[in-house]
């Protein structure tokens, strides 16, 4: 119980750092959806589900591998690069494709409709960013000595961070004009370029370091 409380508090304390990482992705995406309150909360849940999936995958790995889990600079950098490249790709697809099943305004007519599992990908790639609080959580999860312990720890940690994301539903509920939604989609494309660059740069730097 004490461990779970510690995990939740660590998650709560990490919230601002999580927001700084995920906010640039979440904000334009939810604005672009123009979803209304209920659907925005649903989309946010799917996104958070993706983040949770990332956390739990890590938790299972931490529980199975224990102290041998590579958390050194090189491993972190490679995972960071992979997550950023995945995020960039998802943002490009999301930014260019209109949503399935809803007639899009004339401003946005590029490409066929996208799948509803894309928010999961967005959540997964933003969740796995291995910031210091995440690393601390991973180390503590490994110290539990079991997969179940690690999973519970990360679940509690995730709950602590997730609290900070709830207000974002208000963005999705805005029902902005189609112009603003289009701007939000272009913003996602601009962000994709930045994340792609970061991912490539990190990958190259690590590969060159050997």
């Amino acid at each position, binding site marked *: 119980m004490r461990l779970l409380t510690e995990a939740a508090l660590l998650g709560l304390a990490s919230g601002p750092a999580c927001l*700084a990482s995920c906010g640039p992705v979440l904000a*334009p995406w939810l604005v672009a959806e123009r979803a209304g309150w209920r659907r925005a909360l649903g989309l946010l849940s799917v996104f958070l589900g993706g983040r949770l999936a990332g956390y739990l995958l890590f938790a299972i790995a931490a529980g199975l591998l224990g102290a041998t889990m590579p958390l050194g600079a090189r491993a972190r950098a490679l995972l960071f690069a992979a997550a950023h490249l995945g995020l960039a790709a998802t943002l490009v697809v999301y930014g260019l494709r209109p949503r399935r099943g809803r007639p899009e305004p004339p*401003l946005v007519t590029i490409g066929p409709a996208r799948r509803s599992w894309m928010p999961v990908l967005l959540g997964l790639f933003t969740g796995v960013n291995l910031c210091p609080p995440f690393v601390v959580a991973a180390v503590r999860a490994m110290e539990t000595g079991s997969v179940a312990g690690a999973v519970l720890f990360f679940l509690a940690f995730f709950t602590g961070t997730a609290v900070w994301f709830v207000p974002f539903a208000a963005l999705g509920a805005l029902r902005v004009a189609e112009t603003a939604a289009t*701007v939000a989609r*272009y*913003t996602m494309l601009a*962000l994709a370029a930045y994340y792609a660059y970061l991912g490539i*740069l990190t990958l190259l730097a690590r590969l060159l370091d050997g």
Partner: protein
Amino acid sequence: MADHVATPDSRGIGRSLLLTLPVALWALLMFSRALGVPGVAVKVAALLTLIFLVTLFFLMVRTRQTNRWRRWFFATLGFLFPIGFIWELIALRGSMSIPMEKMIAGDTPFCFMVIPMILLPAALTRTVIFPGAILPTASNPHSIAVMIGLWMAATLVLGKGWCAYGCFFGGIEEGIAAMPRKARIRKIDGRWRLVPWAVLAAIVLLSLATLAPTYCEWLCPFKTITEYAEVRSIETAIQAGIFLSLFLGLVIVLPWLTKKRTQCAFFCPFGAFQSLFNKIHIFEIRIRRDECKDCVSCQNSCPTMALSKQSVADGKTLINCMHCGACVDVCHKDAAVWHIKGTPVGAAPERARLLHLYAAWGFAIMFGGSIIAGTLTKMLGFLG
């Protein structure tokens, strides 16, 4: 620099001189200190600038045309500013690049384009994510407080009109766009107008996430003609390449091909930010539907595509109108008119135009005029 403008009846010379008198007195006041300073170059530069700006105002009043003459001032400012700025950098440092020690010392001059990026981080962390100085110093008079203070005053007076009367970067495109007789690229998709807003959103979000001025580090085309971080690594070399490419593409090539201010209209995030203040600015341009023949001359003439078919049908410009007056100048039916919010549209458009010009030109003389005179002083001093 003549476009196919409508030619309204000219105002009489006497009346034009009378209306120009306040501006002439204002210019004398603004340049009085320079005129009193010993040194021929300073005096001649101040006098030339004063005559130039007052003459342009006189012509704006006499011919009842705004943009036709405003462009001369703005292009002159756009070409002379980088000359003067680079001159000063070379004199001070011997180079256009900013070494790290200067950033640590707080000697980086603050540019107004940073403003949208620093607001949220400042609100949340109470720090300014820019390597400058809050208050002016001997080595950095362009401190953050001074430049933000200037921007606040400019926004109060000009609103988005900053992009037509204040910005010392926009004049380069203005001048280049005016040179060809015809545009080679005439059809431009209206969705490009939305890109500056996306760039603004992206840099605001990323600046908050990275606590660094993202636009300055990665995207500003005008780094090419002002200053940039020392190129000491692959990353800084990539950044320099991006600045140069954007400058050549958006500021030189595309304005030449389209006769539009393409960097301003389709990229500049500060322009998008400044557009927000059009909502509260008292001056605007309106379209009188009963006079309009939908000839689309106004739409074609606008350097930033601030008029669309829908907006003209609604009798107004889009939010990114910078009050340059190009549409009013070109309208043969006097449908496009200057307007003061709250007053009946078309009731006294010339009065609205003059009041706007007194405010805008007054600022232009104070700010742009001082930059023009400063550069001319350096050039004349060099020659003499």
